[in-house]
């Protein structure tokens, strides 16, 4: 590697400034990309060779190339230092450090668990927030009441297997043979019933078929390969959206 030293008193033409800066920037960018470390002595020589050009930069492209050359030198310096420092750090600690770097860059996929609503009695209550301020609509209030009620039921008692079976039977008996628009079907079900219907479909006791006009027919027996059951997204049944 030969280094061009600036002529004392002489002003090299712009081309040489540009090409020298380009050489240095390119060299370090390449080494950074391949993960090599340039020894300190060589790096320092390059820095000294580039330093006098600072007074001779005139065009924007020269200035940006100069910036790139310096940034590459600095990045190489960081890499050299960290490699030296890391040689004293135990392996387990380095793995944790890498874990930290990974966590910093994570943009997690979101999972909403449990009852899918914001708690209205915790933080929000402490700032005087009332849910009515957000949802003046009747539908929203009804939905909130239903959610509250369903949560109340779940909290107060568990459901026996036999009772669950009876509930499934009741839902099956009520819905079998019906032919409804999806909206009408959704209206006729509470979220719990929709869940039970979903379970019945999964067990192959009931199948849903969509007609051409968009209405849904509920038939006994499972779906076959030739006549597949239709997937129906129902509101307010959240658990039933995929299974139905």
């Amino acid at each position: 590697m030969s280094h061009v030293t600036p002529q004392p008193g002489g002003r090299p033409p712009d081309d040489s400034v540009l090409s020298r800066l380009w050489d240095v920037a390119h060299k370090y960018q390449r080494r950074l990309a391949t993960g090599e470390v340039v020894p300190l002595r060589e790096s320092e020589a390059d820095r000294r060779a580039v330093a006098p050009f600072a007074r001779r930069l005139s065009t924007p492209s020269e200035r940006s190339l100069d910036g790139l050359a310096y940034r590459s030198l600095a990045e190489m310096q960081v890499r050299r230092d960290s490699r030296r420092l890391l040689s004293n750090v135990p392996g387990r600690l380095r793995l944790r450090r890498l874990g930290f770097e990974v966590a910093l860059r994570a943009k997690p996929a979101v999972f909403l668990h449990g009852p899918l609503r914001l708690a209205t009695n915790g933080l929000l209550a402490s700032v005087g927030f009332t849910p009515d301020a957000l949802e003046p609509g009747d539908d929203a209030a009804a939905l909130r009441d239903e959610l509250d009620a369903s949560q109340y039921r779940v909290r107060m008692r568990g459901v026996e297997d036999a009772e669950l079976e009876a509930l499934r039977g009741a839902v099956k008996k009520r819905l079998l043979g019906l032919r409804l628009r999806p909206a009408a079907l959704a209206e006729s079900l509470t979220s719990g019933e929709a869940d039970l219907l979903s379970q019945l479909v999964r067990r192959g006791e009931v199948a849903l078929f969509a007609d051409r006009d968009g209405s849904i027919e509920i038939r006994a027996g499972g779906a076959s390969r030739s006549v597949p059951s239709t997937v129906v997204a129902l509101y307010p049944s959240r658990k039933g959206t995929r299974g139905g």
Partner: protein
Amino acid sequence: MADETPAEPQPQAPADETLLPQLMAVLTARWRDETGRLAVGAPRKRLLEALRVDDAALDALLARLAERAEGLGLEFRDYRRAGDSWCCLAATHGGPIELSELDQGVLGLIIHLVLKSGRRRAAGIEELRETLVGREYLTENQFQSVLRRLEYHGYVHRSRGAVSLDCRTALEFDEAAQKEIAEQARLLIL
């Protein structure tokens, strides 16, 4: 769900009011396919089936959802999984992930090895074991349990002596982040 919808004047059709919360629930769902691999959100094909709309209508609906979700710090993402196009919601900014520091470290190393492998898109388990167990970063037991945990949470997929990145890594770490992580792994571990 209902509380999360902002109460601004709605220019769209009223159907949105019921559809968007449902889509929100569907796209933030986590479930497992028949092989036990984790899936996030829902395949586009099934959304089209379930909503009985065409591509353009679904795109419009998802665009409206994406607009609403933005206020909650979420963004709409789509990804490829088993040859299908899938959709889900992910956080716009960083957030806690469900892995311990060690798991994250091993994931970082796997990302590096996979990127290094080029078109093969997989890292040899032996090579990984040699690095982590051979150089005493982890014990064999820890190594196995970390790999199991990463696979369970849908970050990596093991098959035939190789480990490849699963959908969740692709979702949670974009290309630039993966490159930076690989760089850090090379610096810190190798």
